[in-house]
């Protein structure tokens, strides 16, 4: 459960005075009766649904299943009893108890999950059946004052509870190196914090020189919701018109009133929805600056802003997720991280050097193909020929575990160090013997046609933005023979399982896998030969040099002959 604990740690409990407008709330159960009367679990849908259109919200929501899905989603607690409701409190409560909620779900008490979120408010306490309401905190009519709940818009910490590290500038960024479900830090190596890199708890190499913040937007108080906005929020309306009919208008002021919005707020924060995401150009005009850059417009048509403004990610990010092994009986895969030099104990003080994202072409909404920074993650898994395809988590558990302990055969097979315990580094199918044994065991459980495959996918790096002298400015970063645009990124580790690597759809035309000295690398496709200085014209240069050399030789010979002829004539004749 340590990752849950760590998860909770990242939730900085900011005890701030509640300044919201939210009225007092009657907490209701699924039948619509006040909970302090019935003692039943809280139903957010009934409670919040008193004023907010829950049907609309559920229909326009891409946070559907707020399950902490570090385990294989298909085998998650959905199979257990009870139903997990949409938990509004997770994002809108001032200090949600993420830990207690996860705990409660893990224990199978799905119905109590939302109630558990309230643990920090003092309205509930744990009981034998789940949770019990403390009646003295409620008014006679069953209302809870708004200040206790502190309901309001999500803060960075709410998003960070799941998506990655968002650290309040005054907290210390304490290291933890991986968390499932993390789409920000573990996926792309970014931390959304205004704190200077050197002030955090990571043992960053060259720390004292890193006087820059993790992310300049976080530093400047631009929070998550400033750019990841609800598509119909009138207060944060994108001023750009998208797909409206009246072409004579720059802006249509007839929008939703705040009240209308609060009744039916869209929760669609999907990146594909153009109205839910602000992009760089929605606030910044790059042509107003960058006067030092020759051929500005050309650069901006070929490079995404992030390419130069996220030159390096300083948080270790996943390079491999190995789902062919289980590191504990909950089902955690083995994870390799990029950008950290693990010491022997894989400890929190291991030196962190960060990594440079790889530049891969991507089609932007305006139709241009630009280079964007990415992290590449290889996910190792078994592919099977059954309808289910991949073997289930339960099957894998049966292969590796006997209850909560590793099976005897697993210990014998994997314990290289011979110390009777299995460390994460030891759990890998890096020899034929280990792989074949596991495959045999899985086949014994009914899985057929198994192949060990590593799927390589690109995760876009969008945070960790920096400006000023920290952004890329030297032409030679790109305009040289091994400049950033063509630079390869390492995919596998020495201890990677023996499997077949394959690129996901998005990467197939963008480059190829190259094996060099036993390691696999992804090499992006050779760039336009028109880019200055990237060595694409070496072949033509060879002809040119040849021609020049030939001319030089001819000149030397011709001149030489003339000279000797002249001398001979002067002497001889």
């Amino acid at each position, binding site marked *: 459960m340590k990752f849950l604990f760590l998860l909770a740690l990242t939730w900085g409990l*900011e005890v*701030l005075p509640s300044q919201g407008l939210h009225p007092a709330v009657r907490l209701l159960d699924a039948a619509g009766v006040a909970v302090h009367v019935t003692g039943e679990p809280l139903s957010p849908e009934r409670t919040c649904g008193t004023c907010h259109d829950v049907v609309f919200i559920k229909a326009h929501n891409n946070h559907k299943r707020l399950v902490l899905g570090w385990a294989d989603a298909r085998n998650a607690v959905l199979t257990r009893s009870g139903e997990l409701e949409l938990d509004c409190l997770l994002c809108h409560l001032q200090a949600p108890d993420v830990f207690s909620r996860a705990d409660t779900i893990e224990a199978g008490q799905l119905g109590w999950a939302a109630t558990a979120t309230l643990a920090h408010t003092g309205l509930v306490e744990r009981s034998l059946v789940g949770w019990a309401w403390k009646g003295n905190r409620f008014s006679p009519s069953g209302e809870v004052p708004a200040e206790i709940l502190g309901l309001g818009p999500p803060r960075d910490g709410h998003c960070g509870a799941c998506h990655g590290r968002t650290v*309040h*500038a*005054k907290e210390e960024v304490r290291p933890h190196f991986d968390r499932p479900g993390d789409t920000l830090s573990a996926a792309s190596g970014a931390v959304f914090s*205004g704190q*200077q890199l050197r002030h955090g708890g990571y043992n960053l190499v060259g720390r004292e020189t890193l*006087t820059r*913040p993790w992310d300049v937007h976080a*530093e*400047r*108080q631009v929070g998550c919701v400033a750019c990841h906005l609800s598509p119909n929020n009138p207060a944060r309306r994108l001023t750009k018109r998208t797909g409206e009919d009246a072409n004579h208008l720059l802006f249509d002021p007839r929008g939703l009133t705040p009240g209308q919005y609060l009744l039916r707020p869209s929760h669609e924060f999907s990146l594909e929805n153009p109205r839910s995401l602000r992009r760089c150009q929605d606030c910044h005009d790059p042509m107003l600056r960058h*006067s*030092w850059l020759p051929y500005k417009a050309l650069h901006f048509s070929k490079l995404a802003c992030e390419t130069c403004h996220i030159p390096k990610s300083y948080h270790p990010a996943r390079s491999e997720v190995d789902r062919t092994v289980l590191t504990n009986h909950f089902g955690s895969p083995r994870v390799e991280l990029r950008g950290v030099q693990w010491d022997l104990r894989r400890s929190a003080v291991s030196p962190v050097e960060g990594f440079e994202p790889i530049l891969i072409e991507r089609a932007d909404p305006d139709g241009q193909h630009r280079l964007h920074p990415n992290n590449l993650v290889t996910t190792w898994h078994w592919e099977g020929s059954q309808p289910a395809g991949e073997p289930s988590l339960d099957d894998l558990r049966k292969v590796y575990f006997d209850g909560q302990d590793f099976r005897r055969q697993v210990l014998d097979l994997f314990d290289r160090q011979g110390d009777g315990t299995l460390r994460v580094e030891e759990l890998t199918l890096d020899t034929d013997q280990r792989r074949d044994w596991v495959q045999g065991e899985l086949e014994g459980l009914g899985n057929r046609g198994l192949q060990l495959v590593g799927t390589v996918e690109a995760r876009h790096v969008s945070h960790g933005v920096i*400006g*000023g*002298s920290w952004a890329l400015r030297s032409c030679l970063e790109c305009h040289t023979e091994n400049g950033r645009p063509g630079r390869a990124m390492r995919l596998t580790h020495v201890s990677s399982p023996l499997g077949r690597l394959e690129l996901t759809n998005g990467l197939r035309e963008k480059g190829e896998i190259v094996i060099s000295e036993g390691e696999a690398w992804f090499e992006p496709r050779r760039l336009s030969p028109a880019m200055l200085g990237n060595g694409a014209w070496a072949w033509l240069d060879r002809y040119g040099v040849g021609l020049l050399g030939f001319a030089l030789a001819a000149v030397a010979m011709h001149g030489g002959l003339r000279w000797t002829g002249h001398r001979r004539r002067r002497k001889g004749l």
Partner: protein
Amino acid sequence: MSRLTVIAPLILGWVILGVGTFLSLSSEPEVADPHDYLPRRAVHYDHTALFDQPFPDGPAVTKTCLQCHDRQAHEVMRTSHWTWEKEMADPSSGGTLVRLGKKNAVNNFCIGVQSNWPRCTSCHAGYGWADEHFDFNDATKVDCLVCHDRSGVYAKAQAGAGHPEPGIDLLASARSVGSPGRANCGSCHFSGGGGNAVKHGDLDSALLNPTPELDVHMGKHNFVCQDCHRSKEHRLRGRSFAVSLTCEDCVRCEDCHQGRIHDDDRLESHRTSLVCQTCHLPAVARKHATKVSWDWSKAGDDRPEDEHRYLKKKGEFVYQKELWPTYRWFNGTVTRYQLGQPVRQGEEVSINRPRGTMTDPEALIWPFKIHMAKQPFDLVHRTLLVPKTAGEDGYWQTFDWDRSLRLGAESNGLAYSGSYDFIETSMYWPLSHMIPPAEEALSCHDCHGEPGRMDWLALGYPGDPLQWGGRRTELRMGRTLP
């Protein structure tokens, strides 16, 4: 038409085109190097060979100095280091001229000099100001050594009215004279208020040999005081708002840091509302704690003493280290309490309240150390009182408030009714020293995050200007500065 008249302008044209193009290529605005504006330091003249006889006392040394430096003595005598007062126009009374200075001002530390001369005047740049009859026209009484001694042996006696400690080798001191170093200025200015680091917050003995992190000018670049507090004819630039009322001849960062400072537009735009120190001085008293409150009313008790908590002579104090400033608008003038002014019931008595508001175009937000004190005042006349603390019959010997206040009032020309109490006063100390390197400056969240350092409402903003708009852009609500 001769060929030359055709060719020459053609060639000239190309040359101009070429040179012009080349020059226009450089698009980076030149940032002036602050080092270019440093004053030139004086060349040292070694005085070792000039003196061979020991000196009996301070004035004897001065007499010798005057043999060559007579003019300089008179220069000093025209400055406030000597006179301890200056005539200034009081901005809060429409420019009425007042003579104000350490000589006759009241503060909320040791309160007042008059009647306490030998102790207070131990920091006078002269010898022998033991009472109100000191001859300010006697050039032989100027103390040259306190500023010019470079040996480090020179020290003034603690209650010696400016005379040096007995037993000091004045000959060695005289031989060592040169341009002042930080130790010279600091011998008095670091221990204002009766001890090291008590008064200013940003001036204490840590600046004798500061690390670059403590003070980037004095630590990293080894600045001496007069590099910024430039002197001309012994008149030093700079104003102390403990006694001054206005900012003529103030030292400013812009004296050396000229033009545009920050590459970043957002940072540069803060200069319309903030003075440099506000961001660049996150905390003072980083090595030695400074006094932030002084309760005189608790003095006279026989409880255990602690230099940083309680002294029988002085009362209760609170010291603080790593002190965060308080931020207020300041336009370079203060409203100063002057002796004899009545204080109104229930009003906060501020000895030197900084003037300025958000709408005052001359005002910027400055960082201040605020010192709170409870000091004696006359219940009937409602004026602050200056107690006689030092010397015979002083409070520090008699522990008799009534007696000390009566004696002090006589000396200061105040009426004393016999009935006194203690009133809370505040004093504002603008902070400018102990500037750390630029990467230690405040970051956005320090003021604009929650909780932030700035009290927006107290500063006159409706809320955080990041959301509400700043003083020049309060115009998100449609208002502009006059």
